């Protein structure tokens, strides 16, 4: 099993998707470039309507691009569709199991669809069921499974045919925190044991921390792409939130004595500085205003997301219709 010399798992050039809606055309994806190295866990973030789903659907050969090219696992998504399909595993947001069948029958069906031999199929089904800790429930109808178990089974199913790239679209949405953590444990486990490439979208910024690299998509374009660490340091500031006895005076003093602008956010005086820990002592000595509490926050991926999309990830949740935001931009 030599994976020593391998091209990128995903390579995208000028990928564009335009939808017709009535007389006008909507550019959902505007000529993006993307490169995901083999073996990486790649986070794909963005507000709803940013073009994430459309991009994933093009990479998974569900939709054809309007223009541009995409190669997944070394094959062209349009011209070599079935070659791509054999080499990718998919876990969708909506569940796609046959609830009437048992866990094992669902996996068996999948193995058959992908043309695995009988012995290979049996071995892989045992392995993936073991991996997601559902081996003892293999003969139960999926109908009886909890949401978390179904999701685990879907991840297992996505792995049955030993794909090179696993696409996960919001794999933890609607799950409780324990189950979310468990699913990421499986993904870590998987990554340690294999050289699989994982391409994942998520709304949970804490989950994006698990990724080797992150791309943030907005308005059909890639707004920024880097490692989580680099992204966080790129926006560079710690945030100090204060509760004071006199906010207005505090803001004036901060400007005057620290030379920094402050504002009020959610009832707290908020200051952005390079190194929060060093500034806190000065606040007590130089402000001359009663301080009731201080919180220092390191930049998080939430802040990164906010900086590059102008929205918090929570604002962007919920169903939203795609509206071309800057129609004349290109």
């Amino acid at each position, binding site marked *: *099993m030599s*994976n020593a010399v391998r091209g990128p798992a995903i390579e995208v050039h000028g990928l564009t998707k335009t939808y017709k809606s009535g007389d006008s055309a909507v550019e959902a994806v505007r000529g993006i470039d993307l490169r995901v190295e083999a073996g990486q866990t790649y986070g794909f973030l963005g507000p709803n309507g940013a073009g994430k789903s459309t991009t994933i659907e093009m990479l*998974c*050969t*569900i939709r054809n691009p309007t223009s541009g090219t995409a190669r997944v696992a070394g094959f062209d998504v349009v011209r070599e*569709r*079935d070659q791509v*399909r*054999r*080499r990718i595993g*998919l876990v*969708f947001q*909506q*569940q*796609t*199991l*046959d*609830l*009437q*069948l048992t866990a094992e*029958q669902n996996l068996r*069906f*999948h193995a*058959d*669809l*992908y*043309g*695995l*031999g009988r012995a*290979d199929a049996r*071995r*892989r089904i045992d*392995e993936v069921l073991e*991996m997601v800790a559902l081996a003892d429930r293999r003969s139960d*109808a999926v109908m009886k499974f909890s949401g978390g178990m179904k999701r685990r089974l879907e991840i297992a*199913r996505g*792995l049955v*045919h*030993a*794909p*090179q790239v696993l696409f996960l679209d919001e794999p933890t949405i609607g799950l409780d925190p324990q189950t979310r953590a468990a699913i990421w444990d499986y993904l870590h486990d*998987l990554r*340690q*044991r*294999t*050289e*699989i490439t994982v391409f994942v979208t998520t709304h949970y910024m804490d989950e994006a921390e698990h990724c080797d690299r992150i791309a943030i998509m907005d308005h059909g374009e890639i707004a920024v792409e880097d490692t989580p660490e680099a992204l966080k340091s790129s926006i560079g500031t710690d945030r100090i939130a204060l509760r004071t006895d006199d906010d207005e005076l505090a803001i004036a003093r901060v400007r005057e004595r620290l030379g920094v602008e402050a504002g009020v956010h959610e009832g707290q005086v908020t200051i952005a500085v390079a190194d929060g820990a060093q500034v806190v002592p000065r606040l007590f000595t130089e402000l001359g205003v009663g301080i009731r509490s201080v919180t220092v926050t390191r930049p998080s991926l939430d802040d990164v997301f906010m900086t590059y999309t102008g929205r918090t990830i929570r604002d962007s949740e919920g169903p939203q219709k795609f509206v071309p935001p800057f129609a004349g931009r290109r």
Partner: protein
Amino acid sequence: MTSRDTTDRAAAVGPPVDLLPEVRSDMTHQLRATWVVTRRELLRFKQDKARMVTMLLQPLLFIFVMGTGLGSIVNTGGGTSFRTFLFPGVLATSVLFTAAFAGISLVWDREFGFLREMMVAPISRASIIWGKCLGGAIVATGQSLVLLALVGTVGIPYSPVLLLELIGCLFLGALLLTALGVLLSTRIKTIQAAMPISQLLIMPMMFLSGSLFPISGLPEWLAVLTRLNPLTYVVQPMRHFTLGQLNLTAAEQERLVPVLTWFGWEVPIGVQLLAVAVITLGLISMAARVFRTTE
């Protein structure tokens, strides 16, 4: 299990190129995929015992309650009971319901997401449609066998040839109706719409096939409608085979199993069945085409 599986799981779960099947010839691949989809229908049916019982109840009511009840006022023109006359028609009707339901289940597959699992697999859209149709038809035929086993109770001998002829007709009829259901499902996207629309289709097909009454001596408009209904060409051969086992008088023959004509031409049984087969193939390929372009 080899030691590789336990000692070197990393290698086993890795992206092993050896797991990828040989690229078979296109035809073999398509047939295999079709069979996989077909087998799912059979598996689902096996899992669903309740469906079997409920689907059997209705034809039993038709034959033994309606057949017996109306039998006293219906004159068959001889010694043949109305129940005997009714049997092949109700047998065909029973597959009508189960097969159409099996075809429509594509809407459920879509609604519950499973369709997507099939759509992203490295198989063609046509194999999904063919698999759904064949699977549905086999299930529907299988269900009707229980009813078929009761053929003796209406005074028809258990002749192996007759049973084979009937099973063949039932399968053909089931495939016709499953194809129709699948074709509908490619257009109808919601369960709420699928149920009434399929009812709207099934009921007229049942009544206009001559399953419950002989197609002799009908008023012109009704005669035309029955001849336009493809199910008629399943029901008539089945009745022909069934009543052929009895020694009917010429009057009974004339009345119960009249010769079906197109503009005066007596249509042979073989041609009737061939017509059904052609229509069925047409429906399946139409469904596959719609499915490929819209899904």
